[in-house]
């Protein structure tokens, strides 16, 4: 992402590596919203997502020198946070951490449209959580974060045909859930 007047990712990386640790704040402000959304959709919990993204950003800072393509910092950050999410999911499978937090609840003062939207979001999030982590990851990267298959391949290390297949299966599973509830 480049904003006129704002430093590019490569400039920020150079500043941080040059000793200006505070410049990493640009990275956080620029990418945390997307990373938090991605992690929330992956983990089904905002608290767990905040932990995963915070851990990922700290890890990114400490290993910034190993970011070979600073112009593609976003892809690199998503790769790190994706791995943190997988670690959280792996820990959950053997631990006693609750799988889901309560789905978003609309304020009764909200209009009918907002209530319906909140219910729809809860339904879709539940359906998403029901997918395998690989399919969930592929669907979220493709349709929520709007990445190309090439970018997804760079993040996940998977081949494009594999990712396409996962996205297709995820769509089919989600569509079935949605149809069953209409």
């Amino acid at each position, binding site marked *: 992402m480049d904003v006129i007047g704002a430093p590019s990712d490569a400039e920020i990386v150079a500043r941080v590596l040059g000793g200006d*640790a*505070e410049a*990493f*704040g640009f990275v*956080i*402000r620029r990418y*945390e*919203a997307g990373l*938090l*959304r991605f992690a*929330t*959709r992956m983990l089904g919990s*905002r*608290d767990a*997502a*905040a932990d995963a*993204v*915070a851990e990922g*950003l*700290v890890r990114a*800072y*400490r290993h910034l020198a190993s970011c070979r393509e600073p112009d593609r910092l976003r892809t690199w950050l998503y790769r790190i946070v994706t791995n943190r999410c997988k670690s959280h999911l792996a820990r959950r499978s053997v631990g006693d951490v609750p799988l889901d937090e309560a789905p978003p609840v609309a304020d009764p003062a909200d209009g009918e449209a907002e209530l319906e*939207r909140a219910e*729809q*979001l809860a339904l*879709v*999030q539940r*359906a*998403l959580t029901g997918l395998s982590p690989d399919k969930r990851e592929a*669907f*979220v990267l493709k*349709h*929520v*974060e*709007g990445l190309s*298959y090439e970018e997804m391949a760079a993040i996940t290390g998977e081949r494009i045909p594999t990712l*396409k297949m996962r*996205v*297709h*299966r995820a*769509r*089919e*599973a*989600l*569509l*079935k859930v*949605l*149809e069953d509830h209409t």
Partner: protein
Amino acid sequence: MNTIDPRIHQVLDGELAVDALPAELRDATEAIRAAADLLAAPVPVRSLESRVMAEIHRPAPSLARRVSAWLATPHAITFRVRPVWSLAFAAAAAVLTLFYARDVGPQLGEHEGIAQFVGRFPDARSVHVVGTFNDWRPGTIALQDLDNDGVWTATVVLPAGTYEYMFVVDGERWVPDHLADRLVADDFGRENSVVIVRPVHR
């Protein structure tokens, strides 16, 4: 698996114009797009900047501390020994374990856990933590900044549970811990931090 028409995938992958779809396939396409739009809405969460920057500024643990932490962490080690040696090894391991266990950290009860409090207060002269675990009494649990880098820490053994707390800086300024697991509003219009202490022994 509930397969859907491949043309729907082609449209969603940007390989086919939606106009090329028969009308009966458009509802499914729109349903998936609508679901994705819902998921793509921003997630309302607190910014992580202060939490991440505080962690970044925290000095890396020394080599000695990392080695100590590694030694104190359980690791799976597999030995292949002749049966005749196994008794001798078992006895030696038992003695070493008993000897080592006397010197490491506090002994925790079955329902106790460890809470670590960390705050960055560069100009503070003293920092204490108060909360529901000490009836909000200042002066009972002090944080330390041994290397004068402005990062104050305290490690406390507490009964497992969920506690609200705040930091008291220089004996007078009460501030929440923005690195906490979460924040909750108190009865005085302020925010308390929340820490969840899990039992070490399950």
